[in-house]
């Protein structure tokens, strides 16, 4: 999993934002969405998700609210308008980057000769 963690580095913020695209979630639900949405490839220790969420909150990209569930305090996060804009921008950047990498990596047929 070390290689997967390395691959995730630098992309974690935008992936966390993407997990909130469909509405508010709490920490464990975010971790599950990240794991399930990646087919199990991005399965981070749950406890390490929270500091990253706090950083995104300080950056104004997400906002958290406390509630009480089964007698426990729970913090749920949702995207802010700034976070939605950032996610849309990063999605566009990623598509361009992925298209460029794919174009270079995929074998292309030689031009047909007459």
């Amino acid at each position, binding site marked *: 999993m070390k290689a997967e963690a390395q691959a995730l580095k630098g992309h974690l913020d935008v992936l966390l934002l993407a997990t909130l695209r469909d509405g508010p979630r709490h920490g464990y639900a975010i971790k599950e969405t990240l794991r399930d949405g990646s087919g199990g490839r991005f399965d981070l220790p*749950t*406890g*390490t998700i929270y500091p990253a969420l706090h*950083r995104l909150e*300080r950056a104004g990209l997400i906002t958290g609210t406390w509630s009480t569930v089964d007698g426990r*305090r729970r913090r749920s996060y949702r995207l802010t308008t700034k976070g939605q804009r950032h996610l849309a921008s990063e999605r566009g950047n990623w598509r361009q980057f992925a298209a460029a990498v794919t174009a270079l990596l995929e074998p292309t047929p030689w031009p047909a000769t007459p």
Partner: protein
Amino acid sequence: MAGHTLIDAHLAALARRLPARAVDELADGLTETYARHLARGFDPTAAARAAIAEFGHPDQIITAFTRQAPGRRTALALLATGPGFAACWGPSLILGHAWTWPIPTPVALAFGLALLAVVAALVTAATSRHSYSRTQLAAPGAIGLVLLDTAVLAAVLLAAPTLVWPMALAIPASLARIGLTARTFPRLLAR
């Protein structure tokens, strides 16, 4: 707490080294993880062990919190800009002949010692990798820096016989640092 001694012990280990707000959130996450494993048919001890394995070792979690701690980041920023301030204030004090200003020696010594203490607190916070509590030294460091900036501005206004041109850079820089640093106080002092 969560209903299993292993879960409680894990949370207690985190509570000793992290702020209460973070521990509340972690407790909810760990309890939720434990409940999911129970729902899958694990017995309570197996569910607790599986939940803890999925959640992460306390050292791993605390390292992640420490790396992202607001105190660590603030301390790094203040230390990174320190040489710029020295480059502004050094020539200001030399060209202004600060040693001739009517400031009692004990006050000047206290200023120097306070500056050393502030730098030590900020370096300790900035270099912390596995101790969240060390990053919290950024709060007294930042408050001390604001007080020192205020003191040096007061000294210039009250004790300097003339203003010299490097002060045109140094004074606005210190005023900006006071304002920007004060804005971080709520975040640094939050528990």
